[in-house]
């Protein structure tokens, strides 16, 4: 059987959902294919007993409740999903605790630029002058990225504008976070606190691109963060609903087995039941990694694509412990929403230690009741602990050792949490679920259980990705969206690249029509 569509979207992850919703909204006949029975990819939830657990979201940035700067909300509004999602605003940035007695710290930071600077001044008296300068740079960088964001169709003349209007951006574009913060003369305490979010990108700040990190600081601290009341599953389902309301078709429990390429142009896909779908655009929310090793014939893959995949490194592998506790957050003393618990404040060392099960003590833990207390029944609470593994240690774990290995690591995370916060939780666990890299591999087909796409290394930082995405041509008809693409991983970047992929596909269709 052969069917024809304007666009086919492979995968209903965050990037695929936004791309689909955008295409349908613009009147393109679109088919969304998802191999799982749910939309969202990582952005989902699950029920155990009387608890509904968020599967992956800690806080969402890009829907800025403080400044009203909400690029995501704009996308959600445009595609018809915004009124289906209920946001809860957060006040708190994070509480950062280190385990090492020789580098002990415990900082509780608020969201909001002024509140953040003032709190930092309390922990590090005299810091605010430098921190204000840093925030000036953060805001200047944001202006440049807004300019780049609004480029729908790149023209060489725009380079001139970048060189004349965006000098601050250009100065720091190829530096790491550490290089820039040290140039500002920021103290160790200031750097430790500002670098607190490093685990959300999985890259040590000695090579993490400063533009990348500062954009994230802008989105979280200046613009503010939210949580969807119905978990990220509410966003995913809202996008799917908007898509189908606008005439889009979504097939679940269906796999794409092949991307069809003719004369260097992607022209459609083949499904697991043999159906061939022809389309003017193929939007791939599967990673390029999976596309090249599973969906495309080797002869169809340009040499450049192969080199790109080999040059880059798969980033952190995910691990999570989901706890439904039979006491309220108040009773237990869970007073914070986000806990970052690190071995110490040397994030390069934390990253290296995270390569081994025995030495990995990195965790980011969320108590959802601090966003909205009725997220769980009265007298209960939800704690969601996550860790990241650099390297591929989990590939050494056998089937027979799987359950014991993941239970032992979960136990260590619970012990570390209790040790760092002094809060006893072990006796109050009513429900527990543990997700290892195998779990992410199972549900999203992530290579090695990777949750952060490609590493945001010095050679593969966000600026280099954006610049080369502007000046290099990919394969006509094939557009990638999601965590392995130009904006790196994360909810907000994946929604953004989904939107960009759809826009590029629509633009190409319009050019073709002329």
């Amino acid at each position, binding site marked *: 059987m052969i069917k024809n569509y304007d666009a086919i979207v492979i995968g209903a992850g965050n990037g695929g959902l936004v791309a689909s919703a955008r295409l349908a909204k613009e009147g393109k006949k679109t088919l969304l294919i998802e191999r799982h029975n*749910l939309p969202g990819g990582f952005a989902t939830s*699950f029920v155990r007993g009387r608890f509904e657990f968020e599967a992956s979201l800690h806080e969402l940035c890009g829907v800025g409740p403080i400044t009203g700067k909400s690029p995501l909300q704009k996308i959600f509004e445009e595609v018809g999903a915004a009124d289906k999602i209920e946001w809860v605003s957060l006040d708190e940035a994070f509480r950062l605790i280190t385990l090492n007695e020789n580098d002990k710290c415990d900082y509780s930071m608020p969201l909001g630029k002024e509140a953040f600077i003032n709190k930092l001044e309390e922990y590090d008296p005299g810091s605010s002058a430098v921190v204000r*300068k840093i925030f000036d740079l953060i805001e200047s960088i944001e202006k440049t990225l807004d300019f780049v964001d609004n480029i729908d169709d790149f023209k060489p003349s725009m380079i001139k504008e970048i060189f004349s209007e965006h000098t*601050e951006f250009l100065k720091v574009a190829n530096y790491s976070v550490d290089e820039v913060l040290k140039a500002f003369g920021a103290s160790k305490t200031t750097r430790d606190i500002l670098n607190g979010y490093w685990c959300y990108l999985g890259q040590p700040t000695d090579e993490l691109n400063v533009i990348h990190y500062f954009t994230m600081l802008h989105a979280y601290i200046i613009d503010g963060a939210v949580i969807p009341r119905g978990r990220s599953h509410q966003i995913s389902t809202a996008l799917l609903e908007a898509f189908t309301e606008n005439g889009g078709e979504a097939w679940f429990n269906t796999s794409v087995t092949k991307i069809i390429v003719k004369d260097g142009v992607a022209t459609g896909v083949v499904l697991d039941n043999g159906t061939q779908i022809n389309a003017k655009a193929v939007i791939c929310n599967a990673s390029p990694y999976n596309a090249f090793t599973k969906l495309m014939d080797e002869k169809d*893959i340009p040499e450049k694509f192969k080199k790109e995949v080999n040059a880059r490194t798969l980033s952190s592998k995910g691990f999570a412990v989901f706890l439904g506790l*039979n006491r309220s957050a108040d009773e237990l003393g869970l007073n914070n929403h986000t806990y970052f618990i690190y071995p110490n404040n040397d994030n390069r060392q934390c990253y290296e230690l995270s390569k081994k099960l025995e030495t990995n003590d990195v965790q980011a833990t969320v108590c959802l009741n601090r966003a909205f207390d009725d997220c769980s029944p009265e007298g209960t609470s939800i704690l969601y602990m996550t860790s990241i593994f650099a390297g591929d240690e989990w590939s050494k774990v056998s089937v027979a050792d799987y359950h014991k290995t993941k*239970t032992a690591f979960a136990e260590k995370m619970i012990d570390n949490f209790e040790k760092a916060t002094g809060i006893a939780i072990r006796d109050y666990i009513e429900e527990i679920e543990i997700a290892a890299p195998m779990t992410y591999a199972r549900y999203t087909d992530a290579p090695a259980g990777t949750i952060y796409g490609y590493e945001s290394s010095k050679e593969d930082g966000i*600026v280099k990705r954006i*610049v080369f995405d502007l000046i290099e041509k990919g394969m006509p008809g094939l557009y990638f969206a999601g965590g392995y693409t130009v904006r790196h991983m994360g909810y907000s970047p994946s929604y953004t690249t989904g939107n960009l992929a759809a826009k590029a596909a629509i633009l190409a269709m319009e050019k073709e029509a002329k």
Partner: protein
Amino acid sequence: MSKKKFSVNGNFKDSINTVKLLTERKKFIGSAPAVLPTRTDDFGVNKVAKSLHPKEQKLVISRIEEHADIAKSYYFKSESAPLAYFKAGQYLTFRLEIGNSVVTRSYSIASSPASALNGEYQITVKRISDGFVSDYILDNWNVGDSVTAYAPEGNMTYNPLRDAGTIVAIAGGSGITPFLSLARAIDQGDEACSLTLLYGCRNSDEILFKSELDSLAEKNGKINVVYVLSHSDEEGYEKGFVGADVIRKYAPEGKYSIFVCGPGGLYKFLETELPKLGLEKKYIRFEVFSSGKKAEDPKKFSIKVINRGEETEIKANSNETVLCAFERAGIEVPARCHTGECGFCRSKLVSGKVYIPEGEDKRRIADMQFNFIHPCCCFPESDLVVRIN
């Protein structure tokens, strides 16, 4: 920006550094080999994931064991890939084509997890009244037959971070199987808990696996077995039902977790018995297998089913679940648990009204908001339009 212009290493070096990003990136990509990288399926993590959760498993019946006239145990070998590993207490869902129907049914695994690694599963099927699929299996499955099962699923498994160190297991009838698996796993050193098994039957003739359970209890100090007979007074057995008194008599000092598996009547009885023990909710776990039926005179409805863009009109009865209607019509749905819990059959209720029995609505918040249903625990109350895929 502040008045004084900021630089990292001076304006000139900063500019050079920025320009360098072009050459750095070109060199980075250019020096990499133009070959295919490791295939996703070849990473150790992905191999284990696939081995634990295969899309489906083709099994061959290698042996059938008769338990008097009450039940049969079926032993399976794999046709190709190794059998998926599991945790004691999990179930296998089988896919069967019976007449024009395509059905799925779940059976707890009786064998130990270690035996799966050695290439064998065991399930036990008991003849029950109105057991459409169980009867079909008992009457039709033979040694050498190929059957299709999905990966093991289920949450009534021991977790040392959540449960007490002793599991007080309450089994009714063929509900013994997950606990036989647990007892075997404990004996093989794969589970660290102790087990006190309270096994309720009508009379001693109906006890399944008695000699094995007795010998496990005999040789392993972590395993205790107590038989409780409801319909006969025999020496060496407890008389009555497994209620609060029996539990109190045999439960250990201090904390224990109760796991329950058995027929509907057992749950009804325990609903009033277990509260007498004053246990926290976290210490009580049920494995519920539902019949998908409700007692009432059926009203007839029709369901328009949308599947991958194709529409089919099927018949439905108000006393059977929406999933039942799909199964009867031969419409394949990725169903597993049949109790609303696993969510595999999640579908969109485009229009119409369904009834969900109290306590069986285990949907996500957003699924309720957007009218997604779990057809396995919904009964039609009007004509429906349902989108499966």
